[in-house]
């Protein structure tokens, strides 16, 4: 019996933790009504997302439980990829927190040191903000040689980020201009 993935998802109930077992139907009988939802022990949430890789913007469905990713597959309702995935999208599960290569700690490398050490967020935010302030203040031009008000610093640069969310990009654009930066660039340039 043919079932589209869309039908399967609808039958199992999105995020409700139900399941549809093919074996539960008598094979010689046509499907007369909606399949029964069978409760599973674990609640599986399904969340829709958009791929972080190229600019097609394919839809994905992330299956997760207890905050952990169990499976990632193409979203059959997405009008562009219609459930399909390229090699990268198909590997999205490995981007998740279980990948040991994921950064999970704030790190710091001191001048001339040969390795990184772990630090806390509070420490890092304070230290970074102090460096931004001291570099900016020591290299801030209120008026240029012609007397024009320019209020800029050319000593700090900001790069990134083509994979950041729109809301993040907007806040960075706002923040960096607020700080007086002019060297603001990212992947779109290259």
């Amino acid at each position, binding site marked *: 019996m043919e079932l589209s993935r869309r039908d399967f998802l609808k039958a199992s109930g999105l995020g409700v933790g139900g399941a549809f077992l093919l074996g539960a139907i008598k094979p010689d009988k046509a499907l007369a009504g909606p399949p029964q939802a069978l409760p599973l022990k674990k609640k599986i949430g399904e969340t829709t997302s958009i791929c972080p890789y190229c600019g097609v913007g394919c839809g994905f469905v992330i299956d997760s439980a207890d905050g952990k990713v169990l499976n990632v597959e193409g979203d059959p309702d997405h009008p562009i990829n219609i459930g399909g995935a390229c090699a990268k999208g198909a590997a999205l599960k490995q981007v998740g927190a279980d990948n040991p290569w994921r950064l999970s700690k*704030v790190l710091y490398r001191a001048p001339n040191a040969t390795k990184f050490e772990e630090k806390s967020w509070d420490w890092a935010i304070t230290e970074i903000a102090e460096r931004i302030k001291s570099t900016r203040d020591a290299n801030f031009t209120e008026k240029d040689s012609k007397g024009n008000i320019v209020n800029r610093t050319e000593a700090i640069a900001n790069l990134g980020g083509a994979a950041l969310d729109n809301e993040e990009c907007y806040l960075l654009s706002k923040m960096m201009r607020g700080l007086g930066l002019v060297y603001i660039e990212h992947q779109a340039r290259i």
Partner: protein
Amino acid sequence: MTNHWGDIANADVILAMGANPAEGHPAAFGWIMKAKERGAKLIAIDPRLTRTGTKADFYARIRSGTDVAFIDGMINYVIQDIEKNPDNYNMLYIREYTDASYLINPNFKGPAELDGLYSGYAGQLNEADGAKRKYDKSTWTYQLDENGIPKQDKTLKDPNCVFQLLKKHVARYTPEKVNAICGTAKDSFIEVCKAYAETGKTSKAGTIMYAMGTTQHTNGAENIRAYSILQTLLSNMGVAGGGINAMRGESNVQGSTDYGLLYHILTGYLKNVVDSDTTLTKYLERITPTTKMPKSLNWWKNTPKYVVSLFKAWYGDAATKDNEFAFNYLPKLDSAKNYSFIALFEAMAAGTIKGLMCWGQNPAVGGPNSNLERKALENLDWLVGIDLWQTETMDFWKRPGVDSKTIKTEVFVLPALASYEKEGSVSNSSRWMQWRYKAANGPGDAEDDLWIANKLMLKLRELYVNKGGPGAGAITDMAWNYGDKPDPNVVAKEINGYDLTTGKLVNNFVGLKDDGTTSCGCWLYSGSYTEAGNMAARRKLTQDTFNIGLFPEWSWCWPLNRRIIYNRASVDLDGVPFDKEHPVIKWNPTKGGTGGWDGDIADNAAVPLSADAGVLPFIMVPNGQAKLFGPGMAEGPFPEFYEPWESPVTNQASKQQSNPIFKIWRPEEKGTPDEFPIVATTYRVVEHWQAGQMTRNLPWLVEMQPEPFVEMSEELASEKGIDNGDKVVVESKRGSVKMVAVVTKRFKPFQLNGKVVHQVGMLWHWGYTGLSTGDSANLLTPSVGDANTMIPEYKAFLVNVRKA
């Protein structure tokens, strides 16, 4: 993209050039296959027979860096055919919707007369002095009548009209010339011209799909101009299955550009402020275009509304009429300087940049001339890297060959959350803003970039409030009220904009004002999050009126949820669609009582052009008509072929060897063909992505594509005694890499004017950090960039190859 991914299925002919969508944008390739099912033809133009090429009905091979010669050759074919068979083209479109009829200053001269240059060049042919590599554009102007309107010859016969000047310009690009420059066989070239010229008919549409192979050249912007000219002559702009479709490479590079994360723009492509903008009024005058053309909407005339609304979003109550809406808080560019990526790293190498923040970018692998970037980073006092993974940029101080103890840079690594570990939106290549949700927790202490930026800014504001500092007001007066954990919905609403008198979200940018009563973070996105809700989160699959696959209720796209831009060009003067089978918009005289447009959101909603209140279709162009003649370009109003900076041959189109304008940063780093006789290009594989940190740390992907390779023809391999799988050394003037050789039939040697020239292709996703390590092709690429955009010339440079 002017159109969108699913619209590709409406095309009759698809031209894929400077791109390999089968591997670069695989889901989109499904739409190409859908078009083919309906009888469409695919043309692939590429130095290599890629996977896209294997599905093409026509494949034409060209040498990397010769795109303008090929496309100008196609334009030549089309213009000659327009004159022979005008009934096969949309002459109404060409006459009424473009500048083909405009008369140009009779003192304007082009490369056909000046050996490759345009009138007004400050230097000599092949000028080396940077100060003289520029144009005085005073002859690149329209002839104006007494009302300031460009004079026009609608018969298109006047020798000074744009159509005739373009014809003269491209006449040199004959099939023989294309063969001599590009190495394309004449019959291949003519087949492509014939197939694509078919889309000039009103009932047929052709789309051009391109990517980095088109843009990453010193002539990159002119490559795209050439596509625009071709598409305009073929009446393919604004129609279903047509358009100029840039296939962007990152999930949100569209958004990051829209939000102004490039030095020269603020949000919504508003030009950034410069030193000579001494007042808000002066600034607005400089950046707001005007027109005398009757019936031209000149939409950018609304610029002041978007600027003032942006300043209100950034400075809130601190932006008032009295202080020019906080205008002087904005950092102004030194108008004599370039601050783009290449310039940025040159400044870092010179020691003027002391601190760098790097959010999800890895320039130590992604930038050109990697050794330059990696060495420049050593001059930083501090570096902050924010990413999901350790990167080569964060590790530059312990890269192979350096002694960490000599490098003083402090490096802070901040762990970031992945796409499905946070909530927010991303904008795909076709301007669709799609909302996505948090599905899982991130590892350990990882946080999202929104949280990180907010924390930093809160701390900085505290420091400036407590300790003061030069220009502190720009930081402390900024409207920054996101709490401790910013909500992306709150930010999205700020972006959409508010009517400050009522506190309600504006419906769209039409409601924005220049008097300080509205705020809007980015005018293009106004309409995305309104009182009706989050438009970007919509998931309805309702079909559009004419069934052309618009999906108008899936997500939200800018501007105004208009899916196909410039769609007024898809109808005639009375609002009747040219293509009856795939209308985009159609004038409905009884709609809403007084009449309206059915279909897509009309670009713009005014009545048809034949009526008094009608408007010309290209509303973002001051004169309302598509530009075949582009005086805004740095190196000339028509695309002229120039060889890449590093080239194996002399230019066969003129005496000007390479682009006469682009800045040559390091002339001593130029490789010459005697030492480096082989043309090299760079490209990608589907299993890896950009600078590699998002894919080289995933075991499944590393298993499929474990190491970088250099691909070469069987002929070259045989010459060099290289077998498939051998380790080889590839060298350029700037560096050396070791890679696996992949010997294929996909490359073939070029015959250029009797000379045999080999080409190779290399991957660049690799570096010295992560699960899979290796050399990046960027150790070899040159740090010269396009004259208009400064995008580096990664796609055509010179190397030599030998067995390791």
